[in-house]
């Protein structure tokens, strides 16, 4: 299809707690993606960086930081920040510029170096910043929000800690086979249940860590594909970067309160579900078409919410889907074949890009021991703080 943008190359720097400058990971990922694409950096005419907010000015201008690190080549530049959704916002910037006919070869890079422990707000007294206020007034960390979602699944659907642990067990088995994952060890349900409670009902091993890492993709126009030769290419079928619709009645990080639905009826579907719905509509595809999905498992319980949000099953049925093995490699629609955040830990500006890397390897049949047989269509999804949708659908 002429309206599609091709994924020419993908590359990652392994996730870990390496303690080096984020730029070094970004360069490694970018060079890997360029080599994978068979594209020379000097021919790239647009570079987009996913911003990192914890690495000083160089992180705020990640696009140009990466361009400079790779050696100035005159490419147009942009930097995107959309919290956890930064990577897909960056991909969308590159894709739309290609679709507009304004560039042929785009490099998208996200890289991060993260501090230890809870993600805390930036320093200083900021009484008008909701992200600061939720810590100051309530002590509501990110895991506290994940705990709220998890507890709701328990009280509404009868889910339990053993169900959540089973998500971790599955993802750890997937991640064992991923050389880019930080944690490559099988975890048992007993390990999860024996780890300390962080935010009831979630335990330490239910919640993803924060990591250093980088991911990059090279995207190309139809003209670029012709020039590079006739090899089959993975295509981006849609990107959804939707915002919520008023009233957004979902309890969302980092807000202390939802919108009020007293005067305007809430939308028929919630924000997370609407992210996927927009991507399906743009791609002309549906959940039944998926061979696999990469979903943002900030917590084990949240992965179950995503099953329902992307339409793999009805509300309240995610635990059943999980226990049937449908979302395990070899099942009907494997989820988080990469190992997910459970095995990676979150590297904010790189994470959405890494999801696209995994789906690309799967669609090319290059995922090794993680390979989903006959993978044709894959979906990546996440959500960034402050109302950022993030969903990419790719196909062979």
């Amino acid at each position: 299809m002429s309206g599609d943008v091709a994924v020419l190359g993908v590359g990652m720097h392994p996730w870990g707690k390496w303690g080096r400058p984020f730029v070094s990971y970004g360069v490694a990922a970018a060079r890997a993606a360029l080599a994978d694409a068979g594209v020379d950096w000097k021919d790239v005419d647009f570079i987009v960086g996913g911003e990192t907010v914890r690495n000083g000015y160089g992180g705020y201008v990640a696009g140009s930081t990466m361009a400079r690190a790779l050696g100035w080549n005159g490419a147009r530049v942009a930097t995107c920040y959309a919290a956890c959704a930064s990577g897909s916002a960056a991909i969308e910037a590159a894709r739309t510029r290609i679709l507009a006919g304004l560039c042929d070869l785009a490099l998208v890079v996200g890289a991060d170096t993260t501090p230890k422990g809870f993600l805390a707000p930036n320093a200083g007294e900021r009484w008008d910043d909701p992200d600061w206020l939720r810590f100051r007034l309530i002590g509501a960390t990110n895991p506290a929000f994940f705990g709220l979602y998890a507890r709701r699944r328990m009280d509404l659907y009868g889910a339990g800690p053993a169900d959540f642990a089973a998500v971790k067990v599955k993802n750890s088995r997937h991640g064992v086979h991923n050389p880019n994952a930080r944690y490559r060890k099988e975890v048992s349900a007993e390990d999860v249940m024996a780890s300390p409670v962080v935010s009831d009902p979630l335990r330490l091993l239910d919640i993803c860590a924060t990591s250093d890492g980088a991911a990059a993709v090279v995207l190309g126009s139809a003209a670029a594909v012709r020039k590079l030769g006739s090899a089959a290419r993975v295509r981006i079928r849609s990107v959804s970067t939707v915002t919520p619709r008023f009233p957004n009645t979902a309890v969302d990080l980092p807000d202390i309160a939802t919108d009020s639905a007293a005067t305007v009826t809430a939308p028929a579907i919630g924000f997370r579900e609407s992210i996927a719905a927009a991507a399906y509509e743009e791609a002309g595809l549906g959940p039944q078409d998926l061979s696999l999905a990469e979903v943002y498992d900030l917590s084990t319980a949240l992965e179950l919410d995503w099953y329902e949000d992307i339409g793999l099953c009805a509300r309240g049925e995610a635990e059943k889907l999980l226990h049937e093995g449908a979302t395990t490699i070899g099942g009907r629609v494997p989820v988080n074949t990469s190992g997910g955040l459970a095995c990676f830990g979150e590297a904010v500006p790189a994470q959405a890009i890494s999801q696209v890397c995994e789906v690309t390897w799967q669609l090319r049949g290059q995922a090794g021991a993680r390979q989903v047989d006959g993978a044709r269509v894959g979906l990546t999804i996440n959500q960034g703080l402050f109302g950022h949708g993030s969903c990419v659908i790719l196909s062979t």
Partner: protein
Amino acid sequence: MTTAVPVIDGWFTIDEPPTLLGRRCTECGTYQFPPTGSWCPNPGCISEDMETVPLSATGTVWSYTDAQYQPPPPYVSRNDPYQPFAIAAVELEREQIIILGQVADGFGVGDLRVGSTVELVVEPLETDGETVKLVWRWRPVVSGEAGDAR
């Protein structure tokens, strides 16, 4: 002499009975909390006339959790060693809004269920010299009757 003040101005009252303060659009009636906007959040309304109104003092639990580890700054722990506290997201029926808050002292996740009733209280969040800083909290209504907990 100690004085008690709200930790943040204009979000809640501290006289008995305390209430959260929201804003309400005089044009379309949409509520807002925190009361920080000076225009209506409803995209179908361009009113900039938001009146300050007390919000319902009881609500139903949307969900709940706790903080077993001390949250990072700017959270200030009142206790040393740190004592875990619970957090509830509470739905107010009239306003159709969900508001987060800590759960009142002495109550934990075991005292809550999705759908159970809680009422608003103000309690010390921290003590800064002679000044006690108060915050809104949600207290489980044990008897099923607001104002009669414990």
